[in-house]
């Protein structure tokens, strides 16, 4: 039986250390045989959230989306949407800590497509697909109040400064760039940038890095005057939902048979989503512009591809395997002096450097074709946007631009056909009701 004095063997143990880091496996001090029959305590394996949390999350998401669709399309109630936003902010934001969210799920889906070792968890898949399915059917009701990021921004907004179109249009390109970057970095297993730069998750958890909290507070402060800055100028999931909502079965629409062109909805829309009628469209000139726009489309695609080609190498340095391989190479070639924690840790594992270089090369190769592809698609999108801008659409009615409308339901309250407003308007004479100016003053007079 071993009754070695640990104090003495401590010094012997210190000597063993010289043999290197891998020495952890050496049993420097044999575990004792207790004469008192002392029982060793177990190592605790505390359990996390129960499995049914996932099912609950999916159920709540589905229910919230259904309620949202009903509130926007049937009840047409801004108050209801605000209530939904508060409920979802509390549940998905503060209680479930804002993770996993539909916006971030883009990265998990991408990773699952490119990395066979990563299977997409069902809850993440549901958070990716359910809002898309609802958007195809009912428009962006997810953005309206179900998304906790949208909800928190919508709730703090109290003034809606109109962003002029010349600024709005270029800013709306940013989400495309963000999406391209996020997809490339997720597909290569490098980073989840959407999560890393999530502005509000720190606020939901009431803890987090200083930069994260500051970014969130700045966005909220800006959001008090410019409604939903993250949704409009950053959100990559909004890009997906925006495109899909163009094809949606029933998004919020203006009924042309009832519209009296009072322009109150245009005034009330905080995201510039109400398109004005434009009947003075020159069909011949339009056709010329369309042909020209489509003809220069390849230039945009090529420019995107070239930009991606140039970015592939710098972007690949965001991958830790590439970083480590480059540093190891530099250290071995004597290009840099000393070692860093990363290379020290790598050497301690005794893993093969050749293998590391091969891995890094594989990652780089993936960047080399993915980045130009993603940025070529980005170029295509920007080119198509340009075509849309230069070719004015023929509109003889006010229309809601589905891709921009986040279904916040503000416009419903202003519409003279809203039940509350109908009661107000009944106090007017028939002639007064036919005059848009009078109607506008009666319905929106106080708020304007």
């Amino acid at each position, binding site marked *: 039986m071993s009754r070695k004095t640990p104090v003495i063997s*401590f010094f012997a143990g210190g000597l063993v250390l010289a043999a290197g880091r891998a020495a*952890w496996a050496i049993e420097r001090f044999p575990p*004792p045989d207790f004469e*008192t029959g002392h029982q060793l305590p177990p190592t605790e394996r505390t359990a996390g*959230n129960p499995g049914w949390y996932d099912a609950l999350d999916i159920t709540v998401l589905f229910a919230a989306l259904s309620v949202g669709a009903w509130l926007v399309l049937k009840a047409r109630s801004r108050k209801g949407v605000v209530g939904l936003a508060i409920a979802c902010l509390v549940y998905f934001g503060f209680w479930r800590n804002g993770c996993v969210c539909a916006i*971030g799920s883009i990265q998990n889906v991408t990773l699952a497509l490119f990395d066979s070792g990563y299977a997409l968890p069902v809850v993440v898949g549901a958070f990716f697909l359910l809002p*898309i399915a609802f958007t195809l059917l009912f428009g962006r009701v997810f953005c309206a109040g179900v998304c906790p990021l949208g909800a928190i921004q919508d709730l703090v907004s109290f003034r809606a400064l109109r962003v002029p179109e010349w600024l709005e249009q270029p800013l709306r390109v940013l989400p495309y760039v963000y999406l391209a970057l996020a997809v490339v970095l997720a597909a290569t297993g490098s980073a989840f940038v959407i999560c890393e730069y999530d502005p509000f998750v720190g606020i939901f958890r009431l803890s987090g890095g200083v930069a994260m909290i500051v970014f969130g507070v700045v966005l909220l402060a800006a959001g008090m005057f410019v409604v939903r800055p993250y949704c409009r100028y950053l959100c990559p999931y909004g890009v997906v939902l925006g495109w*899909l909502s163009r094809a949606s079965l029933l998004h919020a629409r203006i009924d042309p048979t009832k519209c009296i062109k009072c322009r109150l909805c245009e005034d009330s829309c905080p995201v510039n989503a109400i398109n004005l009628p434009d009947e003075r469209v020159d069909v011949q000139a339009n056709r010329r512009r369309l042909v020209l726009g489509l003809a220069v489309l390849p230039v945009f695609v090529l420019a995107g591809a070239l930009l991606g080609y140039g970015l592939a190498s710098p972007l690949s340095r965001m991958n830790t395997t590439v970083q480590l391989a480059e540093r190891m190479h530099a250290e071995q070639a004597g290009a840099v002096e000393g070692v860093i924690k*990363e290379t020290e840790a790598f050497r301690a594992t005794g893993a093969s450097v050749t293998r590391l270089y091969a891995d890094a090369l594989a990652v780089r190769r993936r960047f080399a074709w993915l980045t130009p592809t993603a940025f070529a698609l980005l170029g295509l999108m920007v080119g198509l946007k340009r075509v849309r801008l230069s070719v004015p659409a023929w509109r003889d009615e006010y229309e809601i631009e589905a891709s921009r409308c986040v279904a916040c339901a503000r416009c419903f309250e202003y519409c003279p056909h809203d039940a509350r407003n109908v009661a107000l308007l009944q106090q007017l004479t028939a002639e007064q009701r036919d005059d848009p100016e009078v109607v506008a003053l009666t319905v929106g007079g106080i708020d304007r």
Partner: protein
Amino acid sequence: MPDETHNPTRRDFLRATVRSGALLTIGGMSVAMFERARGRDWVWQIDPYKCTMCGQCATECVLDPSAVKCVHTFPMCGYCDLCTGYFEPQPNSLNTGAENQLCPVGAIKRKFIEEPYFEYTIDESLCIGCAKCVAGCTAFGNGSLHLQIRRDKCVDCNDCSIARKCPARAISRVPADTPYLIKDGHPH
């Protein structure tokens, strides 16, 4: 005036086509997802055999204090009197005096079992995951103390902020049904 660019029926047909196509894709994706996932879920965990005890687990976690805690594999422990995970490098004396302890928050409890053995347990409500004790135990002892991400604390960020900074790249996704990588005393 009839105008080709303003044809609601054609536009509606296009919309319906895109919508049906997208909905079918979603259906297909859901089926494929459920087939492949088989209920698989992931959680973040530290491989203690890769960990270099740099101390960033205490500072990089979105939680304060960190979800990373020191855990103890008792069968690996030597039950030393002079525990290098418990005591400062040159302790004044081998007792529980605060000035002798390595742990900055006094989260390790030292209990006499029998001559000359002492048992060390971690009070996880105090532990901040700084790995000072782990470094001491691994350098001079048996390495029975090591860091793990506690499932009851971790908020399951989609992207672990400690994993981003870990110099040893020791933190990765592991299947949720086997969420721990607790040291068992055998080399990996």
